[in-house]
């Protein structure tokens, strides 16, 4: 085996009571691509952020190129030739690409020469790797795929020999992901070392040389990619056999319960995010909306659930129109039988500082069940919370615990329990399993299908194509604010991927 580019020896890291990394040993050979897979919360980002100097390990040793090093800040890591593309981009949104690239890597106290140098350097990198991006574009105006490119350029500009990418493909279309992989292969051929974090096993099989599996803060296995299988990795990840697809019977679509006609929504900047979208959701079916993040799905959900104003269009709930000018407050829609599980449970779905029982009635707290005269009926609320905890297997099962102290999956269950137990006629769910561990995913999927089987209309938006394919009875694909196609549940990933990339639409236009 070639010389090790990185060795991590006995790394431990805790955040308060959470042991994010325990006794990690990892060796990555120079000039290879090493994959790290693991469920959400397994500690992958933490481990790599330690290598990049963003966090400091509680104990352990790091060697780079065989030499023990101490990495206390990102500056140390950069000096050692380590670059990282973080899961949440580390970009200044209102800066230009150039400004972001030179930040921290300026030549001298004045910017002029740095900008000139970066401009020519970016030009070279662009030609060498096909990393095209307008150096004068402002970050917030770039699509996420290009923002990621800027992050890669930042690392290369600093002369990174070891490149860490943390879940880079989550924000990319399949085609963009392929392009990224070609670039990674090219970098590898030049002798650079790459660590790729992902939870998509197919990507691991396609591009890595070796792979480590993380579970609950430890590395449970390291394999040569050629000698392992997706099945084995999945099992290692979860620690047991997983159902990759939930079983479900035929849907029996009934009457239309939610109907959307010509809906157009603009964002704060006046950019059209949802462009003339129409569809129906019938009782007894799950309609899935697929698409790369940022193609209008969020705004669509927000408009239907009454959080965001729409510019024009018509939405009918159980045959009666919803006021789209924003006057229909979400509470009124709830009363009319529309339940909403928002995409962003931390900011919209929950008040993290509240106790579990408070969150489990949030938004329904005016309901007579929870009131005693003008006061909250604490006993009733507690009994109700305990009931939900039991039914939805929320752990730890303590309704007095602060919501922030629950894991992502359990927080999501709190929201789902709250919304589903109101027995709504229409349920709309954004990213049902984002940041949720595999065990809980299965549970949540089963619940959604149970809702369907009770004759409810379920609308699911997710950026996880697998999830959409396994749940939906019909799949709508959104691209650039439009619904660009409708497919059945048996549509192939490739077919949907092309739609998600807007390929078909462009061809049709030509």
């Amino acid at each position, binding site marked *: 085996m070639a010389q090790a580019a990185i060795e991590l020896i006995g790394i431990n890291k805790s*955040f*308060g009571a959470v042991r994010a990394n325990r006794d990690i040993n990892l060796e990555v050979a120079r000039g290879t691509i090493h994959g790290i897979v693991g469920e959400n919360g397994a500690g992958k980002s933490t481990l790599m952020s330690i290598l*990049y*100097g*963003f*966090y400091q390990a509680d104990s352990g040793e790091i060697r780079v190129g065989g030499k023990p090093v101490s990495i206390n*800040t*990102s*500056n*140390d*890591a*950069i*000096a050692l030739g380590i670059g*990282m593309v*973080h899961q949440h981009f*580390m*970009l*200044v*949104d*209102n*800066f230009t690409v150039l*400004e*972001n690239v*030179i*930040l*921290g*890597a*300026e030549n*001298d*106290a*004045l*910017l*002029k020469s*740095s900008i000139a140098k970066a401009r020519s350097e970016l030009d070279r990198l662009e030609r060498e790797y096909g990393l095209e991006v307008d150096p004068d574009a402002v970050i917030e105006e770039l699509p996420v795929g290009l923002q990621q490119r800027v992050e890669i350029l*930042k690392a290369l500009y600093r002369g990174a020999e070891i490149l860490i990418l943390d879940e880079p493909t989550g924000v990319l279309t399949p085609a963009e992901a392929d392009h990224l992989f070609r670039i990674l292969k090219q970098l590898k051929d030049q002798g650079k070392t790459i660590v790729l974090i992902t939870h998509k096993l197919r990507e691991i099989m396609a591009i890595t040389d070796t792979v480590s599996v993380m579970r609950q803060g430890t590395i449970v296995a390291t394999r040569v990619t050629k000698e392992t299988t997706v099945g084995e990795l999945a099992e290692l990840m979860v620690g047991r056999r997983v159902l990759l697809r939930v079983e479900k019977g035929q849907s029996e679509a009934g009457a239309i319960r939610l109907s959307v006609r010509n809906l157009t929504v603009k964002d704060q900047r006046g950019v059209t995010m949802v462009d003339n979208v129409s569809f129906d959701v019938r009782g007894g079916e799950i309609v899935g909306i697929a698409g790369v993040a940022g193609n209008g799905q969020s705004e669509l959900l927000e408009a239907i659930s009454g959080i965001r104003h729409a510019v024009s269009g018509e939405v009918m709930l159980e045959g009666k129109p919803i006021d789209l000018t924003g006057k229909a407050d979400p509470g009124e829609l709830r009363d009319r039988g529309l339940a909403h599980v928002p995409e962003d449970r931390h900011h919209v779905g929950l008040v993290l500082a509240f106790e579990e029982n408070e969150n489990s009635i949030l938004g329904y707290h005016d309901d007579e069940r929870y009131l005693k005269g003008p006061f909250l009926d604490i006993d009733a609320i507690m009994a109700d919370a305990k009931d939900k905890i039991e039914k939805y297997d929320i752990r730890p099962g303590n309704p007095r615990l602060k919501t922030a102290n629950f894991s992502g999956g359990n927080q999501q269950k709190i929201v789902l329990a709250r919304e589903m137990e109101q027995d709504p006629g229409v349920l709309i769910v954004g990213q049902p399993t984002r940041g949720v561990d595999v065990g809980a995913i299965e549970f949540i999927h089963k619940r959604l299908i149970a809702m369907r089987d009770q004759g409810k209309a379920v609308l699911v938006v997710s950026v996880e194509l697998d999830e959409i394919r396994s749940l939906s009875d019909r799949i709508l694909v959104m691209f650039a604010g439009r619904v660009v196609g409708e497919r059945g549940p048996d549509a192939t990933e490739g077919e949907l991927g092309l739609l998600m990339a807007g390929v078909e639409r462009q061809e049709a236009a030509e």
Partner: protein
Amino acid sequence: MDSFNAVIQVLDSTIRLSVPLLLACLAGLYSERAGIFDIGLEGKMLVGAFAGASAAAVFHSALIGLGTAVLISVAFALVHGFASITHRGNQIVSGVAINFIAAGSTIILGQAWFSQGGRTPALQPGERFEAIIWPGADAIKDVPVIGPIYAELISGHSILVYFAFAMVPFTWWVLFRTRFGLRMRAVGENPAAVDTAGISVAWLRYRALICTGILTGVAGAYLSMVQNGGFVKDMTAGKGYIALAALIFAKWKPVNAMFACLLFGFLDAASIRLQGSPLPLVGKVPAQLMQALPYVLTVILLAGFIGKAVPPRAGGVPYVKER
């Protein structure tokens, strides 16, 4: 001609009155651009004013006064930094605390040292900054139009006035043309980006606060050593808050800040000028109403006449990596 002279006079006092606002506003710009809200501009100006006048009176030197004003004001800025950067405290609470400490300590120390009811001794010539008369100002004073403009508006101010206005292009240059400015703007928007670029977030923010302290120190010195011949208790009279309003009004941009401060200075000057004299149509207006005008305008402007002012995104939020 009379009315022309009146206009010149109002403009002249506009300049004088807007200088402390401008210095404080630019001071706030440095810290807020770096992501630290600083409601303690008022307090830092006040301690600057007190320290400046005290040191000038004791050492008989305007320069020593100015230096002391800056030192003490920077020291207070560092206290704010220690609370809000190092200890990740609430920036508003820290700022308010600084204002209280400033208001109380200047009176107590003033009384203890000088026994003049919280005042410092009246400054003598040489202990305060004098007006600088530009070459030829006297000669062309009587030339119509140009004469008064040159002699009154341009010439005849103290060095601190020119310093304040010079700080406008200088601050713009620092923000948009230097490495420090780039990093400072970045840290106010996304400190994690700065951190992962290998730059110390804390040290960067401290440096921004030092700039803030220097400017509030000069603003304080201007109040007690130029505008007034000594320190009077509570002499900042809310200027620090008006400067904060001007900063928002200016959308955190230096040139805008200058115009915002000139506007507030003008209202102040106009209200002084118009006190007691009857206005056309409305007749005589009570002095209190005129004095309230700048504040009323502040409320109106901030209530939405300026469009959306987007503050630096990380403003007011301590940088915490590990929850």
